[in-house]
């Protein structure tokens, strides 16, 4: 890490709560980036610990504490919370605001992503999945991430925002820099670039509104029947951009990677293509096991939490993948049970900031898998490719995933 992010010496942190842990760093030979988190648990790290890396931050490892981190916004704020710190960092609407200010844009977005609204998108989602899969099915191979998992949610974003498909590569590059780069200058420029794109997009939708989410956000009326503040509109677009692309891409990458090496799981899903309840139950289990997001919070004031002294502006990371394997909550937490009946995973977070797009994200995965298995029922990792590089960070995943199948 660069010197710029070196933290002040944390005098309030006792030595026995300090662990040297860099959540961006996936050592060579580790093929699953979530393993760096599970390894902390296996090594017996304190359930609440502090690492000086990446600007310095706390990590919670218990399901109960992670859930409290999500729910208790009076201590754990989403406002200006990124790790490592980016200054200045845009206030994402509504994710970067605490209740009650958060409610303004939450209320604006919520109806666009309810289960009812998402059911209205299913045909389009299916058509898009079929088109992408049809583009490479006959070849007998693909790079799943490049050819499908990155393109699918980004294409869906373009569709929902009423944008032309030919901007796909531009949006893929912006998202990739946002999530992967640890270079402060590149990160700062990336945020500027994203805002420039959003500015142009919303101005265009203001002039020529369509039946899309961007137009709805621009046209929405807040206080006294006026348009929301322009900066808030941009910040809302920013949130939808960073929250809905990379997360879905990498969740899919995890799931397809697992299916490629697990014939029984492929069989399980194929046998349930006409049983939506059982199909969804199995998806929920893969969502539990493959939670790609590690969320950030900022401590609002000096206080004690579970007997640990926290200081104002301390950062906290809430690793969903760890919460989802807490034996206090899940029976046989490390076992992948595609028929698990009780599964209160926190892959989409909990509390006031529960992922507003969760129903869309889940539907994207379900639709993609069903369409994939109908066209490509059997597939495997490309032999002799070696494991491709995995990355950590706030969204974990893989740089590529080469698959092959018989044609």
């Amino acid at each position, binding site marked *: 890490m660069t010197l710029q992010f070196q933290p002040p010496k944390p005098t309030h942190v006792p030595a026995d709560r300090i662990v040297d842990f860099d959540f961006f760093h996936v050592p060579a030979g580790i093929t699953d980036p979530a393993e760096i988190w599970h390894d902390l648990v296996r090594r017996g790290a304190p359930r609440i610990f502090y690492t000086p890396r990446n600007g310095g931050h706390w990590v919670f490892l218990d399901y109960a504490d992670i859930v409290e981190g999500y729910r208790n916004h009076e201590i754990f704020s989403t406002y200006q919370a990124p790790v490592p710190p980016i200054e200045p960092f845009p206030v994402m609407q509504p994710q970067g605001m605490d209740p009650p200010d958060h409610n303004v844009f939450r*209320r604006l977005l*919520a*109806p666009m*992503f*309810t*289960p*009812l*609204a998402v059911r209205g998108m299913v045909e389009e989602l299916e058509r898009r999945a079929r088109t992408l899969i049809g583009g490479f099915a006959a070849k007998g191979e693909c790079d799943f991430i490049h050819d499908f998992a990155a393109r699918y949610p980004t294409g869906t974003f373009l569709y929902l925002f009423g944008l032309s498909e030919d901007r796909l590569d531009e949006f893929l590059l912006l998202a990739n820099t946002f999530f992967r780069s640890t270079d402060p200058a590149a990160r700062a420029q990336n945020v500027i670039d994203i805002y420039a794109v959003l500015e142009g997009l919303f101005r265009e939708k203001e002039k020529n509104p369509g039946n899309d989410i961007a137009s709805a956000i621009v046209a929405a009326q807040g206080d006294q029947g006026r348009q929301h503040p322009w900066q808030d509109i941009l910040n809302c677009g920013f949130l939808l951009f960073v929250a809905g692309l990379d997360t879905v891409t990498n969740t899919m990458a995890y799931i397809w990677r697992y299916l490629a090496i697990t014939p029984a799981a492929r069989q399980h899903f194929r046998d349930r293509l006409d049983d939506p*309840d059982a199909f*969804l139950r199995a998806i929920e289990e893969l969502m539990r096991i493959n939670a790609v997001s590690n969320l950030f919070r900022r401590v609002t004031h000096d206080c004690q939490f579970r007997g640990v002294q926290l200081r104002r502006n301390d950062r906290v990371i809430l690793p969903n993948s760890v919460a989802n394997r807490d034996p206090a909550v899940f029976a046989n937490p490390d076992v992948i049970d595609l028929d698990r*009946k*009780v*599964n*209160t*995973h*926190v892959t*989409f977070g*909990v*509390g*006031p900031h*529960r992922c507003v797009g*969760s*129903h869309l994200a889940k539907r994207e995965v379900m639709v993609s898998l069903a369409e994939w298995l109908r066209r490509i029922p059997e597939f495997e990792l490309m032999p002799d490719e070696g494991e491709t590089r995995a990355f950590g960070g706030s969204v974990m995943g893989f740089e590529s995933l080469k698959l092959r199948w018989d044609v």
Partner: protein
Amino acid sequence: MRVHVNLNLCQGHARCEDICPEVFATDAVEGKCVIVQAAVPDDLIEKTRLAVRNCPEGALRLASDKWARDQDTAQ
């Protein structure tokens, strides 16, 4: 048995609707839980109980008729 939702806790995960749509739905504005039938028929009690146990917010309760009715009134 009656089912009760605490709408202060519900965050619209819709896991209840996914598991037991006969008893639970979600509204079109906030996406929060709507109880379709609060008095749960005997043949849906197991399914309802499963939905209740899967709520990540712990917002649902399946209880005696009197308890749930008191909760509804309090809310």
